[in-house]
């Protein structure tokens, strides 16, 4: 089964958890957002402690079933706290 390589960008506490702004992730071709999330949570168990953790692609929130494609940039959105 072919793999795709994607970039993950982190903000706020998610950046602290991965220890940097970005990381690369290998996923099976056809993976959904929830599978990427599962992989990230297994690599960084601290994500499990957050109140919420959302994903955005192309500056839009995506839901669990969104299919990730080669070249996508996944952005990790921990609980927002603007204002």
């Amino acid at each position, binding site marked *: 089964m072919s793999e795709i390589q994607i970039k993950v960008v982190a903000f706020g*506490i998610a950046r602290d958890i991965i220890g940097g702004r970005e990381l690369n992730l290998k996923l099976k071709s056809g993976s959904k957002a929830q599978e990427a999330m599962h992989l990230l949570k297994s690599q960084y168990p601290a994500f499990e402690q957050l109140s919420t953790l959302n994903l955005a692609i192309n500056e839009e929130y995506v839901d669990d079933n969104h299919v990730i494609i080669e070249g996508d940039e996944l952005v990790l959105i921990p609980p*927002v706290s603007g*204002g």
Partner: protein
Amino acid sequence: MIEITEHKIDVPTLIAAVSHDGAGATDVFIGTTRNKTSEKAVVKLDFEAYEPMAVKELQKIVDRAKEQWPILKYAISHRVGVVEIGEEAVVIAVSTPHRQAAFESCQFIIDELKKTVPIWKKEIFEDGDVWVASHP
């Protein structure tokens, strides 16, 4: 007008931006850095934003507000970087023909901003810091 800025927010500029001859009411919300949270002394705040998405999400909120209230003009500015005690972290100005719509739409925008806009606030204390609302 929607902006994410590293500079101090100039409130009069935002108020001027929502001036409109048909406006009978302008409501301006100013969120400032408090000197404490839950009795713990806050030294300053440090905001981070995923800027292009933050602007897009703010625009979506404004679009939803416009469906509900007759907004004539709006101006939203949110700081990023270090914000000292007493400084403005966010300013929202809305002008409408009548006052009820100004209050309701301005409050709607700040309430929704806090739910969906990718901006993160770190509270910095004398002895450490914390990303606000990260954990249950």
